[in-house]
């Protein structure tokens, strides 16, 4: 196998919370021994899904370098991000770009749209002449289906959420990165405009060979555009594999519950059973030794409390679930 684009090994992030004059600090494990590999070629869209508090945004922040790991390594094109020289860090930042959730919050309302592009070009010294600048911006905007003359002179408030999000994609593309970390890029955009953004992701993947780390809580958009999926539950992988396979035939009881709870857009197929949630305290019991899903799991048994279940292979090479129901299968490496 050729060198991976991004290789995350045993990534663990522990936040210290609380702690006042008379209180001890508490530790919250946001991400535990997380492993992920994104191949260099072909470019793929890798989805990280999970509920709030599952660690998906922590993962995005780690990859983007906003926070540092408590343990483990993030290796980009064979180089550990922790040991990079300043020049390599700049190169890493050029290669790993971000698109965030809120298309309203990322813009400075006082500047016209062109300012965003000018800053990027200046910071990364991308262009040699003014004509070159214009050309590059125009090309980037065309990729996302916009035209410079329509939007560059405008202010952010004059654009729709969908347009703003596509401009962020264009901004990221301008730098020609290898990887775009997209943290909930469509969750604040109206349904009728989501497709345009997802389509940009597909085109950047197929035509420009840019991989995505697509972070979302929405399984249906992941199902439509994603290649690989990692479903997190309270900081650990519950299940991973090909998106279509994981969603069509989920193996982990949590993922089964999750897939089943997505409201089906068909008035003739209604939820067929009621579910109950246990108390918040039991659900979030962070120091429990065993499987973190145990308090909610309909299939749990004593064995689940002995230790956190490792990932077991399901049927194909890629499909793995961390549940003792599959203990008879081979453990994944």
């Amino acid at each position, binding site marked *: 196998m050729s060198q991976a684009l991004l290789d995350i090994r045993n990534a663990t992030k522990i936040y210290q919370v609380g702690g006042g004059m008379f209180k001890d600090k508490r530790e919250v494990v946001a991400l535990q021994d997380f492993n992920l590999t994104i191949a260099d070629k072909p470019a793929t869209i890798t989805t990280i899904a999970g509920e709030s508090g599952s660690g998906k945004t922590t993962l995005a922040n780690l990859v983007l370098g906003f926070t540092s790991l408590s343990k483990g390594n993030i290796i980009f094109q064979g180089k550990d991000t922790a040991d990079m020289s300043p020049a390599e860090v700049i190169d890493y930042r050029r290669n790993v770009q971000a698109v965030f959730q809120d298309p309203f919050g990322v813009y400075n309302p006082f500047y016209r749209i062109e300012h965003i592009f000018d800053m990027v070009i200046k910071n990364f010294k991308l262009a040699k002449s003014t004509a070159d600048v214009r050309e590059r911006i125009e090309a980037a905007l065309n990729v996302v289906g916009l035209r410079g003359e329509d939007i560059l002179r405008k202010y952010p408030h004059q654009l729709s959420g969908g347009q703003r999000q596509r401009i962020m994609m264009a901004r990221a593309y301008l730098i020609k990165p290898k990887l775009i970390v997209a943290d909930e890029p469509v969750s604040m955009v109206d349904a009728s405009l989501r497709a345009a953004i997802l389509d940009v992701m597909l085109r950047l993947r197929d035509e420009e060979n840019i991989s995505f780390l697509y972070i979302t809580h929405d399984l249906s958009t992941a199902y439509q555009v994603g290649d690989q999926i990692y479903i997190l539950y309270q900081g650990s992988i519950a299940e991973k594999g090909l998106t279509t396979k994981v969603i069509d035939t989920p193996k982990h009881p949590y993922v089964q519950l999750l897939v089943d709870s997505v409201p089906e857009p068909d*008035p003739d197929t209604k939820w067929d059973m*009621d579910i109950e949630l246990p108390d918040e305290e039991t659900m979030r019991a962070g120091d429990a030794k065993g499987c973190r899903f145990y308090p909610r799991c309909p299939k749990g048994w004593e064995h689940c409390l002995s230790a956190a279940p490792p990932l077991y292979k399901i049927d194909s090479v890629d499909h793995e679930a961390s549940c003792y129901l599959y203990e008879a299968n081979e453990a994944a490496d």
Partner: protein
Amino acid sequence: MTQIQKTERGKRENKLEPVLKVRDLKVFYDTPQGDVLAVNGINFNLYEGETLGLVGESGCGKSTAAYGILRLVQEPGRVVGGNVYLDDTDLMALDEGEFRRLRWTKLALIPQGAMNSLNPTMRVHAQIADAIRTHEGRQSKAALKERILELFRTVGLPARVYDMYPHELSGGMKQRVCVAMGIALNPSVVIADESTSALDVVVQRVVAQTLIKVKELLGVSMIMIGHDMGLMAQMVDRIAVMYAGKIVEIAPVRNLFKDPMHPYSQVLIDSIPSLKEKKPLKITEGITHDPRNPPPGCIFQLRCPHVMDVCRTEEPPLRELKTRQEVACHLYELSADGEVQRVASPT
């Protein structure tokens, strides 16, 4: 419209009385550049015991419509015109004091962000007791407690929530406290404004099921405002689709999903991502008009794939094209015998 259809509809309306009638409701927001026409003349009925979904993208006026009905529109917004009848009482004609007595007892709101609508310094039971006492006067502590615990049982909250503060509850529990408060005074109409949209899928399902159960148990009529079409399919009986301050289509939920007629409803249904099959993405361009200056004619003309000349001059009225399916679009014509025909497309 033919005679037969008219009588048929008349019969149905005799059987099903509307609890709430909204007529030509207009809510505008004042801005330095002129009024934003957030809700621009909407009409609908809410029948007894039904759940009506109000859907549309952000900024289409669905929440503003709800706040208009509840007379909770805040500056710089104002209700410009229209009537809202609750059991034949015109809500807009009441003075503030009279209306306050109706709000909560007859007409309750379950707000969007449960996180922000509970008072962080009050225990849960005190907030609910407050609402009950304000409307019903003083009553014995024991009776009040029993009543609040009964409400908790209805929405599936454990009794220990009684003494807790909002910050001790999870998002789903807070949302259920809001449901409990909404139904505390046995209202006949409940408006749920995106009540489940900030929750995780599994929790959302629990809250949605709570709402369905509560609705069936109390027989209330409900307006559900939201943008999640999947959730709508699961929960509502009829759907009203809003676009830029207008209702463009109202139909029974099955019709709207199987046979949406307004081009915007079609876009909305087409853009629901499926979890069952991988489909090519359908992309629609979205340039909306300036909400202060809607173009003359149809409100959807700038984004409509079937736009015709008449759409740019004449506003299409909302009319019943199929049984109980009302559509505001020039694309359809009713022939003399009541058949729906599609006007030949210009392209």
